[in-house]
């Protein structure tokens, strides 16, 4: 029915099945939208946030999806700036995931503020010394970059591509994509970093505070680094899920392994730096403010030292080592375990630096503050997941996201189609000519 919109040479599930999937995700999305509107109309009293938990699950989700979406800028950097050409086979998907993550992050921020109608004050009355201002500017600029990177993908839809102007625009955007990618990498470096700066500059919160290099706390650099390190894990993880659901291999193993290897080395270097940072913080920074390490991990029901171990060793050192080991990396099972641990690791890191920061008492006579989210918060946090699923479903169905899909999954043209497709064949040939030697991703 909608097969005319499919990318060239691929097979897609039936319309009914597609809509069934969409409506399941859509139902979850609607639940999220309900929570969202309750928060907008009735206010943030719909959440379980309080004056101790001004930052809660949303901000964690925000930081986590931005870290996970870091695969987009880092893969882009590798592909366009460092010229690692194999990555062209996964960059589209990385861009899509990045786009989903960042649009979700912006949406969450729009719900999270108490006065969404004047949230633009963050731009208009910007306080340049605030890490959050840096986040807001770089985040929205980088979202613009991601949109610019995603637009050509949309325009490559078989039907849209027939319009000459669109075709040319796609071509031209691909042509200077390196410039956009470089700008994106620059912006990403700063907003990932400034997100790390958000807790790092809180000198009133010894659990979060880190020493500074120039105006930036160590956590600034660690955040950028960790996003670059773990982001690709998430790209690979979602790729794996998409492959499982579609039942097809979509990216060649060498590409996956290459990205996994890069991610592994990034994780290892990151985790060494993180360990150094943690040791310095535990031995020097925190004690200078009167806190011993275990003060942060005792006398409460949730935050034991296990969380530090889980973040650094289990979900840091372990996946790092797996991914740098050629043998373990080559094994799909261990690779997958490492990728999942990596995704958990970076999410845990963001959790600790948002929620545990709020939980730890600072005044000696204050108490731990634990909190659990309300359903409205859970719904609005799940909303981006449903939205992401739907975005991937639609994009996968209609756009040439995976350049290697046709090659990896050759199909016998159906007899009914061959009759009508003579014209199309001509187009394909043209396309193939245009695509040749292009720096942009395209059907092989």
């Amino acid at each position: 029915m909608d097969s005319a919109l499919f990318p060239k040479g691929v097979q897609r599930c039936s319309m009914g099945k597609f809509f069934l999937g969409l409506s399941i995700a859509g139902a979850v999305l609607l639940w999220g939208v309900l929570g969202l509107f309750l928060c907008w109309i009735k206010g943030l009293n719909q959440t379980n946030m309080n004056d101790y938990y001004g930052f809660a699950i949303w901000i964690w989700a925000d930081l986590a999806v931005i870290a996970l979406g870091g695969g987009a800028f880092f893969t882009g950097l590798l592909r366009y700036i460092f010229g690692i050409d194999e990555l062209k086979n996964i960059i589209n998907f990385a861009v899509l995931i990045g786009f989903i993550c960042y649009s979700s992050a912006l949406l969450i921020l729009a719900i999270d503020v108490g006065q969404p109608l004047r949230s633009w004050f963050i731009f208009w009355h910007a306080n340049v010394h605030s890490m959050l201002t840096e986040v807001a500017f770089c985040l929205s600029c980088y979202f613009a970059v991601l949109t610019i990177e995603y637009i050509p993908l949309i325009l490559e839809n078989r039907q849209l591509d027939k319009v000459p102007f669109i075709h040319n625009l796609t071509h031209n955007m691909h042509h200077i994509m390196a410039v956009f990618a470089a700008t994106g990498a620059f912006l990403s470096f700063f907003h990932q970093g400034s997100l790390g700066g958000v807790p790092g500059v809180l000198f009133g919160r010894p659990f979060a505070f880190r020493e500074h290099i120039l105006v930036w706390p160590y956590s600034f650099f660690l955040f950028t680094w960790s996003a670059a390190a773990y982001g690709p894990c998430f790209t690979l993880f979602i790729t794996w899920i998409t492959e499982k659901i579609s039942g097809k291999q979509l990216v060649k193993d060498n590409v996956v392994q290459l990205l996994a290897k890069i991610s592994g080395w990034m994780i290892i270097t990151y985790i060494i730096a993180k360990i150094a940072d943690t040791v310095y913080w535990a031995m020097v920074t925190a004690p200078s403010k009167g806190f011993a390490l275990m003060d942060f991990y005792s006398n409460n029901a949730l935050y034991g030292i296990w969380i530090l171990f889980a973040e650094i060793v289990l979900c840091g050192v372990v996946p790092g080592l797996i991914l740098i080991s050629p043998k373990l990396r080559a094994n799909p099972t261990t690779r997958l375990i490492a990728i999942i641990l990596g995704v958990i690791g970076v999410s845990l890191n963001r959790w600790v630096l948002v929620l545990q920061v709020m939980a730890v008492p600072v005044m000696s006579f204050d108490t731990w503050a634990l909190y659990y989210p309300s359903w409205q918060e859970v719904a609005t946090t799940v909303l981006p997941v449903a939205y992401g699923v739907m975005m991937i479903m639609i994009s996968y169905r209609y756009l040439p996201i995976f350049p290697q899909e046709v090659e990896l999954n050759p199909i016998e043209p159906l007899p009914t189609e061959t009759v009508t497709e003579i014209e199309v064949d001509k187009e394909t040939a043209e396309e193939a000519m245009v695509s040749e030697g292009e720096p942009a991703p395209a059907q092989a």
Partner: protein
Amino acid sequence: MKIDRRSFLAFGVGGAAGTALSPLPWKLTDDSSIWSQRWPWVPIPVDGKIGYAQSTCMLCPGGCGITVRKIDDRPVKIEGQEGHPVNQGGICILGMAGLQFLYGPSRVKTPLKRTGKRGQGQWAQISWEAALNEVAEKLGTLRADGRPQGLACMTDTERGTIPALLKRFMTVYGSPNFIGPASAQDAQETAVRAMAGVDGTVGFDVEKADLILSFGSGLLDGWGSPVRMFQAYSNRQDRKTQIVQIDSRLSNTAAKSDRWISINPGTEGTLALGLAYHIIAKSFYNKVFVDNFSAGFDSFKQKVMADFSPAKVAEITGVPADIISELALQFATAHRPLAICGRGRGSAPGALSDTMAVLALNALVGSINSDGGVRFLPDPGYIFWPDPDLDPIALKGNEQSRLDGAGTGQFSHTRSLPNRFFEQFGSDQRNVPEIMLIADANPLYTLRDTKAVQAALDQIPFIVSFSSFMDETAQQADLILPNHTFLERYQDVPAPAGFTRPFIGLARPVVAPQYNTRHLGDVIIALAGQLKGTIIRAFGWDNYLACLKDTLDERWEGMIEKGFWMDDHFSSPSWDAMFTTGTGRFEFNGEKVASDPWTGAVAAEGDSSTFPLILVPYDSIRLAGGSIGNPPFMMKTVAATVLVKADVFVEINPETARKYQLNEGTPAMLTTPKGEGKVRIHLSEGIMPGLVAMPTGLGHTAFDDFLAGKGVNVNELVGPVEDAASGFDAAWGIRAKLAKA
């Protein structure tokens, strides 16, 4: 023009782009910030000229001067009145929140007549004329039936022109049943009547004492005139005054005192006599006073020596014998020692002997009418109205004995015994009054054994409340004739609790009445007018203001200006001139005290096998006591270790908690012989093991949603214990048990 898909798309895209480039989105964005800054449901307070009005706070017996900041006609904040003799510009938490009473949702805005069943809260608004007619008609009928004593009246003070008008009304009507309050203040006055023969008020010279020994008095928890107490506390270092708090719980007062002596609850009087033992035994007492100006010392000495030996007192009170002797020495050797009594805020009178023991202790060291001592003040006499003519009905009615038995026979020193008043309903149906007027009192909340009070009220056929607020008792009324609040009316506020000089404060309206309310004084005069005859002839004033001016006479001008009248030249009479007992001396054992006062501590009700713990109510300054309840601002200050949602926390020692396997926050059922209540546990090292401390001032069922339904009224769990010597409610606690709920 043919509209195909392409041109439609182009039109859409072009339109969107055009709109985006137009000023419209910018304008909308800009507007959004303006809307979000002034939503119509966020009020913008009206500006105006700043002005100030002065008055006297009537929210507690403290009698502080207040300055009300106004914007045009609108009071916006209450502050302490600078230079006022009682509070010297200070103010307490309750007074500070006073405007919330004025404007709050619990106000009774117009006369109300009950339409549903009692306590159902169904009311019809009626006119003042109809309301007054109805009361007058009922009063007329009762009187015509020759049973004027069937009218009872209850107030929360017996001082000033309003109680005097009510009392006068009762007298000319023909009923002796004017029931005032019975608080620690009344207990002190009763003890002074018995021991010194002085009918007046009792002042405590806390500013000049150099050692204050407080027998469980919550000097910082609302006792006396609270602001004055706070100031005496905070200035004490400048005066090198020591304050010793004797308390079974680390109250705020105990925490801020120089020394806290923990004691078994209810045994404060015993400790006082234990101290007396040492002072007498070591001859540390003031011989000039004792030898020349006292009587009954020998029998007192004999009694103390026999029954209050250090070992025995140590055992009863739990205070080690060496501390008792050390304390006695410290008290006897201080220059200006002062012993203070009245547990907590002093809302309950306690046993007369406890108060007498403390007064005797003061007398032993000569701290009577001396600087830094206890002062026996004559009532500030200014109400000199001619005796009214009584018609035969009134004469006959007044011959009947009071329902509470106060003032006669064994209780000859007491004025009113509200607890007895309600208790005796059950014994004889003929004792139940037919009409009850309730002004400013809220017995259904403030008296012990609330259930019994409710049962008693249920029997009264017609209840009229004059409350400004929908309090617990007003909810049970058949008719409410709302009085102005203290901020809307004139009234004299004599004799601030514990003040050391003759003093009359004046409340003046700082704002016009906000609702359709009427001054109680005017209502009394109007009712008298309807009843005619000798009754109206007893009220020779057109209205209350005329009465007040007439009564205050030459003091009026000065009071309007300053807000108070104080006898600046007052000096306490010397020891030889002050005692008006039969002997003309200070009677250590009291005069005409029917039973032996020195019988020792009052036991808590209940048996210790069923109820192994002891429940002690505690007062705190952040929870208003008495007939009113906490305004919303004060509720905000109540700690989360006292109240969470609707659950009140009781304080127990961690040791007690271990014994009953309770933890911080555990929901529990607290049971006493009088009832049970759902509570939660708060562990505190500031409370003696074996005790359960529960805050007073919670568990309201009336007023508004900001107060009602939160916690338990401790008076539901504690029953009165009648003091044989005075008839006062001597209960200080009750036996109890705790079980996990």
